[in-house]
């Protein structure tokens, strides 16, 4: 049996490991454009100079040797041909498969504003190659404009602060981290970044950006007419699943690749996992999908059920935040807030159920909140302060000593 996996992110790596556990003899080939296995969540540490390429590797030691995986790196897939059961790489090589996993992730979305897509000093922050290019450009750059104040935009700024750059972050909405945080929690991070020298321009959009003779953008014009000088532009405006290589393959796609509960695509023996499915952009979910796809490629009948993806943790300047579920207040919500100088905690309750949790400063033992929210567990009968609810209220130990939730 020959298994081919496209992509060396967590979904691909997890699938490869799972396949090897099930099938000792099968041939496993991994193909990636990336030349180093790396965790995208740590690219800011590379930009900051805190870690080198090797320090971003999330796999165990000697991963490819240990699990007997043939890794073809630095090559892209140009075409997937389900009829022939083969894929064609950008070096012309054809690779046949019995089972194929598409785990080639997503690409940074660069909005069609001015000449952002054409300029040579405009980067997303998605791949190690982006971070490497940013570091190189930063050697001579002074001013950096970051478009977007989500987690990726702030990551980029956080890394570049270590290199002493002057950073301006432009955000369409009137506050930072608008998807993850409420105003109070967002302000705390805004102050920390501002104290470190970052300038925010909120409630504004980039409206014009023109390449100069050197092929670079040196000035971004905003909606209000303000002009921001820049030597580097980092665009953190989301990602789109990498579907280009699927053109003409007959593999059904919507926002991402369409998959069934077993992560099978519309074509036989082809599976998909991770960001390319558009199901979730969250690491643990991608890992879980990789595992399930791997099992099923070996004949298993696993289903992807733990689909909940409205969850994030944030850590900048030692201020940690956890947010799960809904952030925006709706009619009929009961909002509970607990605040002192070390922490800010906000819970959204509706009809006896927790629909959103935001914890800043202290996130100790907070994993139970995700379980409560995603399983819509009724907490109205628990005679405790809402902030004191914990696993003790749902506690069960099975005969093997593992915990189980009962409610």
């Amino acid at each position, binding site marked *: 049996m020959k298994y081919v996996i496209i992509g060396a992110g*967590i979904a691909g790596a997890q699938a490869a490991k799972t396949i090897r556990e099930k099938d000792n003899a099968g041939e496993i080939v991994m193909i990636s454009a990336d030349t180093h296995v790396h*965790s*995208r*969540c*740590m690219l800011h*540490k590379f930009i900051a100079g805190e870690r080198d390429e090797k320090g971003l*590797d*999330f*796999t*165990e030691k000697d991963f490819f040797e240990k699990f007997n995986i043939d890794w073809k790196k630095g090559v892209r897939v140009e075409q997937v041909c389900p009829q022939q059961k083969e894929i064609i790489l950008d070096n012309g090589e054809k690779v046949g498969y019995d089972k194929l996993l598409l785990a080639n992730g997503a690409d940074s979305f660069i909005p069609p504003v001015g000449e952002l897509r054409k300029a040579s000093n405009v980067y997303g922050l998605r791949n190690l190659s982006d971070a490497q290019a940013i570091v190189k450009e930063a050697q001579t750059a002074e001013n950096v404009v970051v478009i977007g104040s989500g987690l990726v935009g702030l990551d980029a700024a956080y890394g570049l602060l270590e290199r002493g750059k002057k950073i301006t972050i432009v955000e369409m909405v009137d506050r930072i981290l608008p998807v993850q945080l409420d105003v109070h929690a967002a302000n705390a991070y805004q102050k920390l970044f501002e104290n470190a020298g970052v300038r925010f321009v909120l409630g504004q959009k980039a409206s014009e950006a023109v390449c100069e003779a050197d092929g670079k953008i040196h000035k971004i014009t905003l909606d209000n007419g303000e002009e921001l000088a820049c030597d580097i532009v980092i665009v953190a405006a989301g990602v789109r699943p990498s579907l280009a290589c699927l053109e003409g393959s007959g593999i059904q796609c919507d926002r991402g690749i369409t998959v069934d509960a077993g992560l099978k695509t519309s074509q036989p023996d082809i599976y998909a996992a991770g960001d390319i499915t558009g199901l979730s952009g969250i*690491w*643990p979910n991608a*890992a*879980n999908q990789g*595992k399930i796809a791997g099992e099923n490629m070996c004949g298993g009948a696993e289903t992807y059920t733990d689909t909940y993806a409205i*969850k*994030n*943790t944030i*850590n900048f300047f*030692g*201020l*940690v935040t*956890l947010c*799960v579920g809904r952030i925006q207040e709706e009619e009929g919500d009961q909002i509970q807030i607990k605040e002192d100088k070390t922490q800010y905690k906000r819970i959204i309750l509706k009809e006896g159920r927790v629909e959103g949790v935001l914890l800043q400063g202290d*996130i*100790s*033992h*907070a*994993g*139970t909140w*995700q*379980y409560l929210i995603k399983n819509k567990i009724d907490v109205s009968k*628990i*005679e*405790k302060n809402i902030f004191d609810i*914990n*696993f*003790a*209220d749902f*506690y069960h*130990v099975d005969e*093997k*000593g*593992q*915990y189980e*939730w009962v409610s």
Partner: protein
Amino acid sequence: MKRIMIDYQKCDGCKNCSIACMQAHRETQGTVYDLDLTDPRNESRNRILKDADGQYKPLFCRHCDDPKCVESCMSGALYKDPESGHVFYDETRCGSCFMCVMNCPFGVIKPDAVTKSKVVKCDFCVNAGGEPSCVASCPKQAIYVEEV
């Protein structure tokens, strides 16, 4: 694998297990008599919770068969050791993202109180011969090690 089994009805909430854990993982030398309980660096990896009825419920890392903390670890710092079955944590690889805190369905893991740059997690007292200090200190046999 060996797991710390829990008979919660025997727990009387004395918290000897928590003190033993703090003592086992303190950075300084010394005995339990000079263990500084007020030093935030001395954190216990276990915790005795109480439910709404006042019943004690010991919260100890299960070193789960399918550990959700490991699944969420984006740096490779958390891993399930194939030999012992225990979930270990390599602080030097940790990226301080705390997705493990978010993803443990039982709320076992927490960031360290002082630096907020690493997590506090049971290591089965592997550096003390793999005999968990908490178990040795329990006067009620509410926790005990068993091969599962």
